[in-house]
C-alpha cells in the first residue's frame, strides 16, 4: 500500500498547511503588520478550517474545465448572432448596467483579496484568499470577453472602466468597494467575504442569471454560472472567517457584530440596482425583487443568523428596515433613473400596460397606490412629446451615495431624511443605517467623492450638462443616454427584425 494515493485531508495538510514555516529571525508583527490594529485577537491560526480542502493542483484542474466550457459557448453565441435572439433590445440595458456597475467590482475584489491574503498569519487563510483573488480576476476577464460581443451591436458598453470611476450612479458600487478596501484586512473579509459573498451575492447573481436565461441571453447565463461556480467556495470562506474570529476570542464578538451591521446595510443599498433591474429591465420576468428578497435574504439570512446565535451574533437591526422597503425599493429606484435618463449610460422607459399589470399583481399593497399614478402622468407627458427629464442635480446620501429618493416607510410619500453635524458641517443621509455608519467613522466618510458635489465644485469637465456627460463621463450623447424609444439601439433592433418603431405605429393608428 506504499503507493496509495493520499486522501484529500492529508493532501490538503501537506500542500497547504505544511508550506508554513517558523519565523526565526523576523518579528511576527513586522511580517504581518496589519493583523492586530483592528482589535481582532487571534490566538491560534492552526484552528482555521478550510471546509473544501482545495489544493492548488485541483484548483487549476477544475478552473481549466470551467474555462473550456465557457469559451466554447461564448464562441457559439457570437458565431450564431446570439445578440439578435434576446427577448427585446431593452433587455441589453441590464447587461450595460452589469458591465459598468458590477464587473469592475470583480477587479476590486481581485485586488482586495490579493492584499488581505498577504496580511494574515495563517497559511490556510492565505491560500484561500489567493485562490479567491485569482477567481475574481477570472470573473472580470470573462465578463469583459462575453460582453465585448454586445459592444459590437449596442451603445453604452464602450467606456465601462472610465465610467465606473466617474459616473454618478456608478459611484454607488464603486464607493462600496473603496470603503471595504480602505478598511483593515479583517473588516474587508467581513465586508466582502461574509456580507457581500455569503449573504448578498445570491441576490445579485442568481436573479441576473435566471433573468438572462429567460431573456435568451446565452452568453450572460454562461459567464454568470461560470463565475457563480466559484461563489460557493467564496461564500464558505466568508462564513469560515466569521466563525474563526468568533471562536478565537470573546473580545472579537462586538467588533464582528458591528461590522456585520454596517456591511449588510452597505451591501443591501448597492443591490438597489439589482432590484430595479429585476422588476423593470427584464422584458420576460423571472420573479419580483420582493420574491427573491424573501427567498435569498429573509429565509437564507434567517437560517444563517440562527446558526450564528450560539456565538452571540444577532441579525442586524437594519434588516427590519430592508424588509420594510421590499415593496417600494425597485419602484423608487426606477423612478430616479427615469428622472435622470439623460444622464445614464443606458436607456430607461415607462413600463408597457402588460408590465404595469404584472407590477400591480406582484406589489398589490404599493404599486397601484403610489407608483402607477406617477407613471401614468409621465406617460401622458411622453405622449404629448414632453418626456420628463429632471434638469436639477439630486442631493446624495453621504454614505451610500444614492440620490435621496427613498421614502419613510411609515409615511411612503415623504422623503426619508436624516442628518448629522460633524466639525461644523451638515451631512445628509437616506436612512438610519447610513447615518450610523457615518457617525461611527465620520473622519472616513467626510472624504467621500460625491459626484454631485464634484460637479458643482467644477471638477467634472465644466458647468454645462454636456460638458459633464459628454466630455467627462465620455457618454455618446444621443446614443448611450435618453429614453429607449427613439434610440439608435431601438432602430437597429427594429431593422434586424423588420419591426416598425412604436411611434410610427401610433401615427398610423391616429
Amino acid at each position, binding site marked *: 500500500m506504499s503507493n496509495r494515493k493520499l486522501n484529500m485531508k492529508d493532501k490538503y495538510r501537506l500542500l497547504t498547511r505544511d508550506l508554513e514555516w517558523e519565523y526565526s529571525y523576523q518579528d511576527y508583527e513586522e511580517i504581518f503588520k496589519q493583523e492586530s490594529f483592528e482589535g481582532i485577537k487571534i490566538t491560534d491560526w492552526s484552528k482555521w478550517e478550510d471546509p473544501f*480542502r482545495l489544493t492548488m493542483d485541483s484548483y487549476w484542474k477544475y478552473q481549466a474545465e470551467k474555462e473550456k466550457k465557457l469559451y466554447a459557448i461564448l464562441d457559439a453565441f457570437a458565431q450564431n448572432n446570439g445578440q439578435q435572439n434576446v427577448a427585446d433590445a431593452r433587455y441589453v440595458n441590464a447587461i450595460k448596467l452589469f458591465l459598468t456597475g458590477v464587473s469592475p467590482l470583480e477587479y476590486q475584489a481581485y485586488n482586495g483579496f490579493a492584499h488581505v491574503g498577504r496580511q494574515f498569519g495563517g497559511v490556510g487563510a492565505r491560500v484561500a484568499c489567493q485562490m479567491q483573488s485569482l477567481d475574481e480576476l477570472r470573473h472580470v476577464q470573462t465578463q469583459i470577453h462575453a460582453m465585448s460581443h454586445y459592444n459590437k451591436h449596442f451603445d453604452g458598453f464602450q467606456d465601462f472602466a472610465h465610467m465606473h470611476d466617474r459616473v454618478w450612479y456608478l459611484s454607488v458600487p464603486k464607493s462600496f468597494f473603496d470603503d471595504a478596501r480602505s478598511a483593515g484586512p479583517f473588516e474587508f473579509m467581513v465586508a466582502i467575504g461574509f456580507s457581500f459573498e455569503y449573504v448578498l451575492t445570491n441576490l445579485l447573481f*442568481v436573479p441576473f442569471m435566471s433573468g438572462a436565461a*429567460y431573456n435568451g441571453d446565452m452568453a450572460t447565463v454562461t459567464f454568470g*454560472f461560470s463565475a457563480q461556480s466559484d461563489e460557493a*467556495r467564496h461564500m464558505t470562506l466568508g462564513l469560515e472567517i466569521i466563525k474563526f474570529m468568533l471562536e478565537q476570542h470573546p473580545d472579537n464578538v462586538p467588533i464582528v457584530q458591528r461590522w456585520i451591521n454596517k456591511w449588510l446595510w452597505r451591501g443591501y443599498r448597492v443591490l438597489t440596482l439589482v432590484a430595479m433591474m429585476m422588476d423593470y429591465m427584464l422584458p420576460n420576468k423571472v420573479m419580483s425583487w420582493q420574491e427573491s428578497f424573501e427567498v435569498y435574504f429573509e*429565509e437564507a439570512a434567517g*437560517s444563517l443568523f440562527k446558526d450564528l446565535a450560539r456565538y452571540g451574533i444577532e441579525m442586524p437591526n437594519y434588516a427590519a428596515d430592508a424588509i420594510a422597503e421590499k415593496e417600494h425599493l425597485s419602484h423608487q429606484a426606477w423612478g430616479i433613473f427615469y428622472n435622470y435618463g439623460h444622464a445614464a449610460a443606458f436607456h430607461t422607459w415607462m413600463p408597457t400596460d402588460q408590465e404595469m399589470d404584472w407590477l400591480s399583481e406582484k406589489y398589490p399593497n404599493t404599486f397601484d397606490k403610489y407608483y402607477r399614478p406617477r407613471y401614468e402622468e409621465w406617460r401622458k407627458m411622453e405622449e404629448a412629446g414632453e418626456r420628463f427629464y429632471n434638469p436639477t442635480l439630486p442631493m446624495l446620501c453621504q454614505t451610500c451615495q444614492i440620490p435621496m429618493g427613498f421614502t419613510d416607510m411609515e409615511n411612503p410619500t415623504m422623503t426619508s431624511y436624516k442628518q448629522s453635524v460633524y466639525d461644523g458641517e451638515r451631512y445628509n443621509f437616506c436612512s438610519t443605517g447610513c447615518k450610523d455608519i457615518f457617525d461611527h467613522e465620520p473622519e472616513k466618510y467626510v472624504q467621500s467623492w460625491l459626484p454631485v458635489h464634484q460637479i458643482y465644485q467644477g471638477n467634472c469637465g465644466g458647468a454645462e450638462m454636456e460638458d459633464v456627460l459628454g466630455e467627462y463621463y465620455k457618454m455618446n450623447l444621443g446614443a448611450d443616454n435618453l429614453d429607449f424609444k427613439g434610440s439608435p439601439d431601438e432602430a437597429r433592433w427594429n431593422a434586424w427584425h423588420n419591426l416598425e418603431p412604436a411611434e410610427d405605429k401610433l401615427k398610423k393608428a391616429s
Partner: protein
Amino acid sequence: MSKVYIALQDNEESRYIVEAIEEDNPDATVIYQPAMIRIENEGHLVIKRETVEEMMGRDWEVMALHVNLITLGGNVDEDEDQLSLTWND
C-alpha cells in the same frame, strides 16, 4: 430547524447528481427553476460519491461538483467520499 440548500446548473451531469441526492436524502425537496435546480432540506443534506458514481456509471470525484455548483447554504464539510451541509441549531 433551518433549511440547508444547494443549487446546481441544470445539465446532463447534474441530472445524475440530483438523482443521487434524492436517493440519499429522501426528505429533500427538489425545485426546478430556469437553468438551475435547487435542492433543500431541513437541517442536513449529503452528496455521496458512491451514489453519484452508481447513477453515472463511472468514476466521479466530489470536487467535480464545483463545476456545476451555483450556490449553497449551510456549514460545509467535504472529503473524498462526500460533501455535507448542516445547520447547528
